[in-house]
């Protein structure tokens, strides 16, 4: 039996127990005394406080940080918004009040009633927002009659105002009420129900910076529910301001160019990776979301066949078409697999086994060397070149330039695109890679998929010849007096200068030489270089391109430009969904954007 006897301890304990009883008794007696003080002595005061229980907590959301462009021009600001609220517990005769409100606002009563019903099931002391964005006149009418309006208050809430149009809505993003699933995430651990958060774009990326720290009031309200005096207050701390790499004027130009089209324009600084333009069309009015969007408007947006919520600049994954020939040429040169001066004959088609691969120019290009093949975008030359160097070489250089992987832009919604390899095909489809597929890939058709942003970043690598910059959207965050700056990030690619200058020369030829496919990007005074792309939509028969620009079976138009070619300062990639020919549809848009950014007329 385990029973250690410890007489000295036992003696000690027994000596101290009576004292312990006394102490316990004293402590409980102290509690007793405190209860007597609260319940008997001050009972009536607390009774009063409780019947009129009027101590309320109102939270004050912090003013969200502003967003500026690279020059400091505002892109997103806050403006005050007046909200009409009703606190059910303080409103004894709701129908009468609603009637009065409808008269004062000079608006029908139904929407107000509907809002109130939506607020059912929440605590009665929590105000329900009846109407947002009152006009000055309406606000004045309510405030001057507030004595007759029990439980009605007008709150001043900062509201978001977006200075850019619909085609920038994906870039800046929008706000919405925090969802149930988001609340469970660690990232949002400091957030409460009903809080408004950035849902996508920069608003989401910068959420923790932009939000600031909410404050609140502890107020006493009178029997009618009006705020009487403030017992305590914690001021909110405004959110930090963000400075983007965007050039507001150029962005607005891009928006205008994209109006009525489906597509995207990306302009990127090949040295720093700064994104001067990131536009996608169609978009939506971000001001609709400035306080959280209503269900009906949201449904319209997600049902829209034009997919206005999709940021085409980084989410549209499409075959790059002839733009891809640049990479195939680069791969061949860099590996030393061809003599660029050797001419191949293009009769308008290339027979391979049982299949005939056609050139876009039915009558053929005749004898072409690599330079001419790029300038005139000869398919037959590249069919043969692709076949000669093989899919793995093509894939190696495509991946080197960042295709088939995310560029690492701040916006997490970015898609990775696809650079096919035989291993990929075996894994994905369980079948062997066919040589015909290499031939198809060589002209940017088949499995290969890219986003306009990837194309821009890859051509930045060609423009500077030595590295692919990571696209940079946020230059700095200003936190009070402190500034966090984001350094440019570069990934070295180590191409030989000879290859790079050959490619750039050919790209300049695309725009400036006779029979070049990108002549419509030509600008007087500087040498623009570029490459057109006309990507066939899957299911469309080769060579039967219709002129109908709205057709969903029409070709996708691509154009990517670098300017000036001697020392590129800007890379622009333009993608127009079902737009038709890259040379005629996309090239002129690139031209306008370059002119705007380089301040040329």
């Amino acid at each position, binding site marked *: *039996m*385990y*029973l*250690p*006897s*410890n*007489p*000295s*301890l*036992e003696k*000690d*304990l*027994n000596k*101290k*127990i*009576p004292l*312990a*009883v006394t102490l*316990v*008794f004293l*402590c*409980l007696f102290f*509690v*007793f005394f*405190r*209860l*007597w003080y*609260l*319940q*008997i002595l*001050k*009972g*009536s*005061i*607390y*009774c009063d*406080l*409780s*019947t009129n*229980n009027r*101590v*309320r*907590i109102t*939270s004050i959301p912090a003013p969200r940080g502003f967003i500026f462009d690279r020059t400091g021009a505002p892109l997103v600001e806050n403006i005050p918004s007046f909200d009409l609220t009703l606190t059910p*517990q303080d409103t004894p005769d709701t129908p009468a009040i609603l009637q009065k409100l409808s008269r004062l606002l000079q608006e029908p009563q139904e929407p107000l009633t509907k809002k109130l019903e939506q607020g059912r099931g929440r*605590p*009665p*002391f929590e105000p329900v927002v009846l109407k947002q964005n009152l006009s000055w006149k309406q606000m004045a009418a309510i405030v001057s009659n507030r004595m007759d309006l029990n439980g009605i208050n007008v709150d001043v809430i900062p509201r978001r105002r977006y200075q850019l149009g619909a085609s920038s809505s994906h870039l800046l993003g929008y706000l919405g009420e925090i969802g149930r699933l988001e609340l*469970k*995430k*660690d990232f949002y*651990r400091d957030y409460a129900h009903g809080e408004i958060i950035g849902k996508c774009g920069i608003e989401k990326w910068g959420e923790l910076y932009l939000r600031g720290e909410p*404050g*609140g009031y*502890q107020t006493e309200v009178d029997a009618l529910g009006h705020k009487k005096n403030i*017992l*305590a*207050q*914690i001021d909110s701390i405004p959110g930090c301001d963000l400075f983007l790499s965007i050039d507001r004027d150029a962005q607005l130009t891009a928006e205008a160019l994209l109006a009525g089209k489906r597509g995207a324009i990306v302009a990127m600084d090949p040295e720093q990776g700064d994104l001067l333009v990131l536009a996608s069309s169609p978009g939506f009015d971000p001001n609709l979301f400035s306080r959280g969007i209503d269900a009906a408007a949201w449904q319209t947006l997600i049902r829209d066949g034009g997919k206005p919520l999709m940021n085409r600049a980084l989410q549209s994954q499409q075959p790059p078409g002839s733009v891809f020939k640049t990479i195939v040429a680069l791969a061949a040169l860099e590996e030393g697999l061809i003599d660029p001066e050797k001419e191949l004959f293009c009769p308008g088609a290339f027979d391979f086994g049982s299949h005939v691969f056609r050139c876009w120019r039915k009558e053929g290009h005749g004898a072409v060397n690599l330079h001419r093949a790029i300038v005139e975008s000869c398919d037959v030359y590249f069919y043969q070149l692709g076949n000669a160097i093989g899919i793995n070489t093509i894939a190696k250089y495509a991946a080197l330039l960042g295709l088939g992987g995310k560029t690492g832009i701040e916006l997490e919604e970015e898609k990775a695109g696809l650079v096919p390899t035989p291993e990929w095909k075996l894994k994905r489809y369980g079948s062997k890679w066919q040589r015909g597929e290499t031939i198809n890939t060589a002209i940017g058709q088949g499995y290969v998929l890219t986003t306009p942003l990837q194309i821009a970043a890859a051509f930045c690598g060609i423009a500077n010849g030595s590295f692919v910059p990571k696209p940079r959207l946020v230059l700095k965050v200003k936190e009070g007096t402190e500034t966090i700056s984001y350094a440019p990030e570069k990934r070295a690619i180590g191409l030989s200068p000879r290859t790079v200058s050959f490619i750039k020369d050919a790209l300049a030829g695309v725009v400036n030489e006779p029979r070049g496919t990108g002549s419509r990007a030509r600008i007087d005074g500087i040498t623009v270089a570029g490459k057109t792309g006309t990507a066939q939509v899957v299911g469309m028969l080769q060579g039967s391109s219709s002129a109908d620009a709205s057709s969903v079976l029409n070709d996708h138009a691509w154009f990517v430009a670098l300017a000036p070619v001697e020392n590129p300062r800007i890379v622009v990639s333009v993608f127009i969904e079902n737009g038709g020919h890259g040379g005629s549809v996309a090239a002129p848009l690139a031209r306008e954007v370059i002119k705007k950014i380089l301040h040329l007329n």
Partner: protein
Amino acid sequence: MFDRRLLINFDWGLLAALLMVTALGLLNLYSICSSSWEVSSVYFYRQLYWVALGLVVIFCVIPVNYTAIIRYAYYLHATSLLILVVVILIGKTALGSQRWLSLGPISIQPSELAKITFILALCKFYIENSSAKPFRLIDLWLPFFFLLLTFFLIYIQPDLGTGGIIVLVFFSLLFFVRVDKKSFFVFVLSSVVFLPLLWAFLKDYQKKRVLTFLNPELDPLRSGYQIIQSKIAIGSGSFWGKGFTLGTQSQLRFLPEQHTDFAFSVWGEEWGFIGCVVLLLLFFLVLYRGLGIAFSSKNASGALLSICVVLLLFWQIIINIGMTIGLFPVVGVPLPFFSYGGSSMLTSMFAVGLLLNISMRKFKYQR
């Protein structure tokens, strides 16, 4: 063979006081469920289930001789610390999930379990090591090590309330064992010197958190608000109270934890000063009987264990009630037997089961 003397010495008074507190707690919870729209009646039925389970725990504890429990105390405590670690690791991988230990239909907070095994381990140490010579501080390295380790693991659960309780129990227990006065004085002095040093190392926001903890008025939107509302609730109960299910504070605004940490506020509002005094008396009876069992216990283990159990209950009662009437900062400590919560109910029942156990065996053993 079951010894009939065991039954003769059973402390029916303690059991009765305990059952009455539990019954009043259920009554109070029923009222909260019926008037609050944040707490559904599911809680009431769940609490009934916990009470039943708690009684089963008592009757399981009673037949096992408590000296046997103390004998294995270090292993028991090691096990519950291990559970704490496991729960922390699992909690890390499943983001945002609560740190609960799930045993089929029963899920309990491991920090509650650690609280009990901690006092058992302390008992074992003092019983085996006490002598006529007082403890110097250096002799107490093992209990201090237990305290730091246990506190740390409970603190990062996070369960600051339970962590605070074990610290209080630990230091108040020092009063009962023989500690060298000079050595104790050195300890107090050194903590007085070291605390400001530690303070200097804290970051601004950490200082703010500590200050808010000590003075909730600094945080008028959260804990300061809860205290005001709790004081209004209790004060407005006046002498007779507003009546069963008639509390107005409880159905409104303030307490997200009115069924757990602020259950006493609701009681004070509905049953007034009279109700509070009755509850206080019942609690006093439980503590008084506990100390009585310690006094009449014929050996040191029984006496010390009883004292530990009483300290554990005492501090929880004082801290919880003190918090609702504005004497202490708001920390998450449930009121034993009274607040809603399965883990607290089971461990409190277990603790009282130990008291009953000791009272039954207060004669000298021959076997």
